[in-house]
């Protein structure tokens, strides 16, 4: 490859100053997520061992491979431990491939803070790589780098290149809880839209992606890809840092930064690009599921030469034997024990008689008793396991002592120094730790670890530190360690709902003709407002926030009340429909949404005291108009009318006026959609006289179910 390199550099001799600059990299040693709890309470995540080698070693190895000369390492939690580790490692030695390795401390609580801090320090001089401290890759970066530089030559606004690994539809290394979707212009490899699909089990509806109409119109060709492993290797220019600084509220590099920058393309004019690889290994240990998958990948040599027998750490002496069995020198095996395939065994470990070990990583100086069954377990250093114990698919941290006749089920996480007494069963998915959030020792819970044991059950969120919106995925992600979750696999069919979503995207235009004579910018307001409200609804943000956002948008666009209502109606209905598609009943969906966001609707109606309920009628008309184009529009309209009444948002008179308004019965469609609401209006009229009759509404509810 080197000759090609030289050949390529000769023609652009004018780019000499570019060659001079040192190649820098930023390692985000802490990604400010809590997916590795409870282990991360005592150790920084990047020092957790993967196939008995700390994660950070793989990342630094990758950077060394790439020829990086200057590394900035950002520590987060437990940065003192990390610093100590790094200072003692070969990376600090004179022979380190890096000319500089700076350890930067900051009080950051998010990736965004780190980037802004970095921008403030003015350390970055040229193009640099940003990786998180848990990247494992054998990718030679120069292809991506050359592509990035070539793009920079022609277009100064191409500020970032993301390296993505192609991986088919289902892949163990891909994240199962959220699935990133990249919309890419294949002619320029430009990423034009990014979204994360929530695939956690509590979101059972079809996955959807919202692509703006303009995007579709602008690009003749678009790839919508969901088959990519995002290994968060980004080649950035210093402009990226200033962009982070400009948007002070961005926290996460993908969900917010990437999404935001792409959305504000008109504003900043920066383009982000992708570099898709399909022949090297690249992955990120983003959660415990990935930990499991990547361990397997490394042991089965997909990440070659990053294998245990490469002995990345100076003291390691792993040897490869037949059947992906890696063994260090100085392992004591009983004659009658069975060591199966895909096993890693560290120095000083002894395994007793009749013990069987399969698919397991064993650290150093472990003592495994007799007749123990280990399958799919990750056992770190200095662990003692008593006789007749059964361990499957669990992670057992340093210094754990497990008694005799225990049973550790799949997905159990046993943190540092826990002691489990004899004969205890640890159920699937349980997490046991000794340390509290603040680092102090907790009281032991004998019901969990038995008499004489040490440790208590860790329940996520007990001392909630949810600084990250990925938090809600934590439990899912960790339990995903063992579960394949076949039901959750996103089929390609559901992606195709984008097209139907798109056709719906055009509805406001048809609605406009009959109601208002908006100008272009007012149309923009509608677009922005409904999108923003819709996003907020989907994320379940509180009503105040929605209201605030709406007000600010309204101020900037100087929008009329009618427009605000229209935006609300369209976003609410869209959300309700989504809930219904996810399997909720119409009535339930409607009442849930309106109950939660009652205030938002209330603040758009100003005619409560007046005789002529113009605003309320307008709202109902908009609703009706909107629902014409939606499936089950008539039912939704009925329930909406009902809940608006129950929440006292719309008065009885307004219903009457609406019903008699000629606009509400102008077309055949309008009449169809309101047909079901007929009974409600009739009932209202009757109720004015006999307010006791309420069975009817109950009947309605039941016949909908």
């Amino acid at each position, binding site marked *: 490859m*080197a000759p090609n*390199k030289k050949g390529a550099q000769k023609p652009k001799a004018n780019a000499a100053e570019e*060659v001079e600059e040192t190649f820098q990299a930023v390692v985000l040693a802490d990604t400010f997520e809590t997916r590795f709890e409870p282990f991360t309470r005592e150790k920084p995540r990047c020092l957790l061992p993967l196939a008995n080698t700390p994660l950070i070693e793989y990342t630094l190895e990758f950077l060394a*491979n790439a*020829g990086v000369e200057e590394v900035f390492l950002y520590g987060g939690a437990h940065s003192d431990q990390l610093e100590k580790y790094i200072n003692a490692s070969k990376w600090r030695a*004179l022979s380190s491939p890096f000319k500089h390795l700076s350890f930067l401390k900051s009080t950051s609580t998010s990736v965004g803070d780190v980037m802004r801090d970095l921008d403030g320090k003015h350390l970055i001089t040229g193009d640099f790589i940003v990786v998180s401290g848990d990247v494992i890759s054998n990718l030679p970066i*120069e292809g991506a780098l050359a592509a990035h530089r070539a793009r920079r030559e022609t277009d100064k606004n191409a500020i970032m290149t993301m390296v993505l690994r192609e*991986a088919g539809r289902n892949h163990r290394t891909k994240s199962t809880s959220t699935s990133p979707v990249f919309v890419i212009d294949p002619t320029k490899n430009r990423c034009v839209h990014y979204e994360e699909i929530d695939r956690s089990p509590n979101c059972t509806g079809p996955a959807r992606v919202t692509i703006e109409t303009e995007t579709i119109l602008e690009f003749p060709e678009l790839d919508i890809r969901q088959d990519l492993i995002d290994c968060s290797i980004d080649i950035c220019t210093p402009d990226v840092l200033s962009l982070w600084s400009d948007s002070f509220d961005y926290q996460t590099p993908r969900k917010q930064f990437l999404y935001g920058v792409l959305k504000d393309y008109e504003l900043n004019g920066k383009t982000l690009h992708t570099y898709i690889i399909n022949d090297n290994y690249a992955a990120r240990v983003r959660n415990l599921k990935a930990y499991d998958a990547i361990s397997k*990948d490394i042991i089965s040599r*997909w990440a070659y030469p990053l294998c245990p027998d490469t002995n990345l750490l100076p003291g390691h002496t792993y040897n490869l034997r037949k059947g992906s069995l890696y063994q260090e020198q100085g392992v004591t095996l009983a004659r009658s024990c069975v060591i199966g395939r895909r096993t890693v065994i560290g120095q000083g470990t002894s395994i007793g008689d009749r013990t069987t070990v399969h698919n397991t990583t064993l650290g150093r100086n472990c003592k495994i008793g007799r007749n123990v069954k280990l399958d799919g377990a990750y056992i770190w250093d200095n662990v003692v396991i008593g006789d007749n114990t059964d361990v499957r698919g669990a992670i057992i941290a340093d210094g754990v002592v497990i008694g005799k006749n225990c049973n550790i089920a799949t997905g159990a996480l046993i943190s540092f120094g826990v002691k489990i007494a004899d004969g205890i069963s640890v159920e699937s998915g349980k997490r046991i730790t000794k340390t509290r959030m603040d680092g102090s020792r907790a009281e032991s819970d004998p019901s969990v670890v038995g008499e004489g044991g040490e440790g208590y059950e860790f329940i996520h969120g007990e001392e909630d530190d949810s600084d990250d919106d990925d938090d809600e995925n934590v439990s899912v992600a960790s339990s995903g360690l063992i579960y394949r979750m076949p039901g959750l696999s996103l089929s390609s069919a559901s992606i195709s709902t984008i097209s139907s979503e798109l056709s719906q995207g055009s509805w406001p235009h048809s609605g406009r003709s009959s109601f208002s004579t908006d100008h272009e910018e007012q149309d923009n307001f509608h677009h922005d407002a409904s999108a923003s409200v819709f996003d907020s609804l989907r994320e379940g943000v509180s009503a105040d926030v929605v209201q605030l956002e709406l007000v600010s948008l309204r101020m900037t666009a100087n929008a009329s009340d009618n427009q605000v209502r229209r935006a609300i109606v369209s976003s609410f209905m869209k959300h309700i429909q989504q809930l219904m598609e996810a399997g909720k009943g119409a009535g339930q969906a409607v009442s849930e949404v309106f109950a939660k966001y009652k205030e938002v609707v209330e603040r758009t109606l100003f005619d409560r005291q007046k005789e002529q309920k113009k605003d309320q009628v307008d709202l109902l008309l908009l609703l009706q108009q909107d629902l014409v184009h939606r499936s089950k529009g008539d039912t939704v309209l009925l329930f909406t009318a009902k809940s608006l009444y129950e929440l006292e948002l719309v008065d009885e008179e307004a219903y009457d006026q609406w019903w008699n308004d000629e606009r509400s019965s102008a077309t055949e469609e309008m009449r169809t959609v309101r047909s079901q609401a007929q009974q409600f209006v009739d009932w209202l009229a009757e109720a004015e006289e006999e307010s006791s009759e309420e069975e009817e509404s109950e009947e309605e509810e039941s016949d909908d179910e």
Partner: protein
Amino acid sequence: MPATSLALTPGLASFLKSLKTNPIDTSIENLISLLKRRQIRHSRSCATATAYLLRSVISACRTADSAKLIERVQGVGRRLMAAQPREMVVGNIVRRVLGLIRDEAEDDREAEFALSDVGSESQPQTPRAYDDPSLPLDRDSLSIRSEDRSARPPLTSMFSLLSHPEPEHSLPSTPGSLSPGGRLPGHGPSKDVRAEVLEGIGEIIDELGQVDDQIAAYALDHIHSNEIILTHTSSTTVQKFLLKAAAKRKFTVIHAESYPNNHEATHATVSGGSMHDDDNLGFETFQKPLIEHGITVILIPDSAVFALMSRVNKVILGTHSVLANGGLVAAAGTRVIARAAKVHQTPIVVVSGVYKLSPVYPFDFDSLIEYGDASKVLSYEDGDLVDQIDVQNPIYDYVPAELVDLYITNLGGHAPSYLYRIVSDHYRKEDISF
């Protein structure tokens, strides 16, 4: 240093460049990590890097004592070998350097004795390794000189006692006569040892540069007109061998593509594409492919080897390393070819530089085989399969000695059963397992 930023990806070239400027310990660590990361791979790159490194180690070693030198080289050598035990040439070069130091030390001691009686020419160290009667005498003197130094045998062999004495006097500048002579006036044995060893390493490096041409010199003895030759992998040694014969004779080459680890390089070699292997980096410039010499080259998939074997007159193979028992560790697929050739009684010729000859005896040949990247066999995209299938991708094959008919090294042609002699000529017993 703009020089290092130019060569972005670390490799042999960047290592050799940095060797001049970096302190020695840094260079050692650097090479260890390069070997670990497989950024320096293939026998010759490893051998060259090791030789250059040891040269720097010795020149940086300010000690006068040869025992200390040996200790130092052993220490470095152990670490290098531990870094990538399957690149056996690293060990070979280390052993040869150790042998050089021991020779010089012994020469010294004997020179001191010899000061009283001047019969230094009768030392047991002097006999050459040219014990092969088939050795042609028309080789260029340069090649003789280089291999001569490196091939200086530590032990007297019975073969060499009977061997033709001609090379002896054709080389007046042999080390046997030179070193005592050079040392006589100075009386500073300590300083000399290092200088001599450095010179010796320089000759090993020269040998590494010339070995392919030396082997190719035998090509016309082995390749005849209108033969059909089967080969495998993109080995430059084999290519040069064939090219040399192609200059004079017309024959046909069947080239197995050695999928999946080397097929791209093989395709490039056959078609004369611009892709360069690490192997030939820095040694030779781009060469015309065989087809431009009017040779018919047929590229076949590895699976077709057996079907075509009945037509093949000769199999010529390159290798990763040669073991003391005459077996060899070569690119995966070699064993299949060797077996097929055996069935059809087709002669198998292995071309290999002496530097690839390792004194290691393959008691456990599994441990000599490197397992590579599984994704070359099965695409990593196929998530369902990746999850459920264990993929193994051995990069090397072990070929037992009985399948090979002839080895051609830069010293000439040898039967597999004879290799132990060359081993004992090249490596000292005390260095075989250090």
